[in-house]
């Protein structure tokens, strides 16, 4: 059992932050919101680490958890930066892919109506790898393989 002290209070706040941000992490649908939730949860864990450690031997400042938390903050920043980089590239890839699909669909329509004249109907877009992706393709099950046979 431990008496009420500053460290204990902040450790408790850290625990509350963890619970709150876990709630937000699981409920939010947006990637950036999830990332914020992750950062705040990290801060909560750090608070708990330093707070709880410093409730031992009557509240003296303990250098070890503080050093660990410093490492933790730097790791959190690099993880967040990485996540942001991937999100940006994913947004860009989505726009490019969506536009490619949209242009491909346009090309196919053009191809179909001239094919209709030569009544060579068989050249529907089944063979071109990209054409079968509907615009809101679920990215997972139906990868739009690109022309030179790169596996998805």
């Amino acid at each position, binding site marked *: 059992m431990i008496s009420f002290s500053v460290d204990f209070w902040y450790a408790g706040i850290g625990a509350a932050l963890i619970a709150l941000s876990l709630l937000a*992490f699981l409920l939010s649908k947006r990637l950036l919101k999830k990332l914020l939730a992750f950062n705040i949860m990290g801060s909560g864990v750090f608070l*708990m680490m330093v707070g709880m450690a410093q*409730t*031992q031997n009557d509240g003296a400042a303990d250098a*070890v958890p503080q050093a660990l938390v410093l*490492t933790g903050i730097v790791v959190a920043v690099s993880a967040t930066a990485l996540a942001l980089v991937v999100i940006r590239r994913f947004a860009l890839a989505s726009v490019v892919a969506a536009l490619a699909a949209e242009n491909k669909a346009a090309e196919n329509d053009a191809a179909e109506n001239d094919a209709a004249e030569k009544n060579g109907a068989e050249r529907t877009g089944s063979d071109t790898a990209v054409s079968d992706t509907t615009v809101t393709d679920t990215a997972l099950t139906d990868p739009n393989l690109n022309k030179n046979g790169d596996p998805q």
Partner: protein
Amino acid sequence: MMPLLLIIPLAWAILCILLPQRWLSLTIRAGLLLQVGAALLLTADVYVNGPIEYALGDWQAPLGIALIADGVSVTLISLSAVVALFVAFYAQSYLQRYEHEQTYFWPLFWFLLASLNGIWLAGDLFNLYVGLELLGLAAVGMVTLTGEKPALHAALRYLYAALLGSLAYLAGVAILYGAYGTLAIPQLGELLDANITTFVAIGLISIGLLLKTAIFPFHYWLPPAHGGALAPVSALLSALVVKASFYILARVWLDMASEINSHVVLYSAAQGLGVLGAGAILWGSWQAYKAAQVKMLVAYSTVAQLGYLMLLFPLAIGTTAVAAGLAWQGAMLHLLAHGFAKAAMFMSVGTLVLAIGHGKVNDLAGVSHRIPISLFAFGLSAVSIMGLPPSGGFNAKWLLLQSAMASQQWWWFILLVVGGLLTAAYVFRVFRISFVEKATHEFSSTSSTLDFTALALAAIAIAMGFFSQWPLSLLQSSGFQGGGL
């Protein structure tokens, strides 16, 4: 001598960043051979005079960080060194068509290897956290290499799962430090007593590590990530990366908490882990059977095979010493055999997809006589994955069966037998199609190194069926025996 295993990969990571392209392939090969040499030297050292403890920076354990090399960690170091060797050779010829990816694949490869060696050797909880983080980020980086939309989407899901997992793990470590004042695993092993704080801490650590090992309810991120990545990347991820967090889980449950794990709370939790494993086996096999893409099939098979590893906990905790010893050896042998076989499987599937250009299972028609060696490698690795003799997988399944009988837990016995059949169901899907006479696609030629590296790893998995005595006797001399002995 032991820190060599950490210095070599880190130094080579820097070399791969700095060196120009043309010297790269030579230095990589040199680094790989050095790594395998160091791993074998350490293995011999531990085999001769038992576990070694190495205080980093000459500071003793609770204050400084200690590296512990016992039978288990040394076997895993040799596993990762050998698998990395073959995957690297495979990657060198596989990535020739991807110059952009190639420049960034190698630094991440070496950082991944460094973090793996760090995790196998670590004796300190926070050190494991930083190792896990480095491993996770390097793995996510590798998944994003192709820069295509599905790969990026999968990488994002993987990143979020990995980050959530390591945060849960860190919370557990924070509580343990707050309660006991030390982070060194052996010291914690003595100090731990069965109270609420310890249970909550171990619970959080377990949830975090289950998330990172993609065990059944948390496996959603693995198939798209492993299925969508480049072949050498998914081989590394499935064979080694997923095993690191399982290894930590095993060390926490069976080494650190060995005194208190017969407590009713931990005993029932161990049974719970077993149920998760059973869920993983059934769900993974079912999804693999349904998968349309061949890479997704292999990725779901990883989810299923990880379920077998989870059987270690119910079989080793709260059971007789004999049963625990057998369970421990069975789980570690399964980890080794699956490491080799799954890497070979992903590499051979990668070659097949590269040659055909299309990834669906029924695009593989007529493969058997056009790319026979890759299919043969796939076959051999499939034998080990199915747990049919003569393979490492079979011996592991045999040991787990014996342990299940010794501890009178018949339900795991039935699960193991049925699991083997389920695996056969989805593996033979690929075989049935590959023997079809008429090919639906034309095949482009692939270099032979791709086939022979996959074949070599598959052959090792099969050879372990006959020579599994060496790794097992090495495990015998390991510091901890899985709670029982």
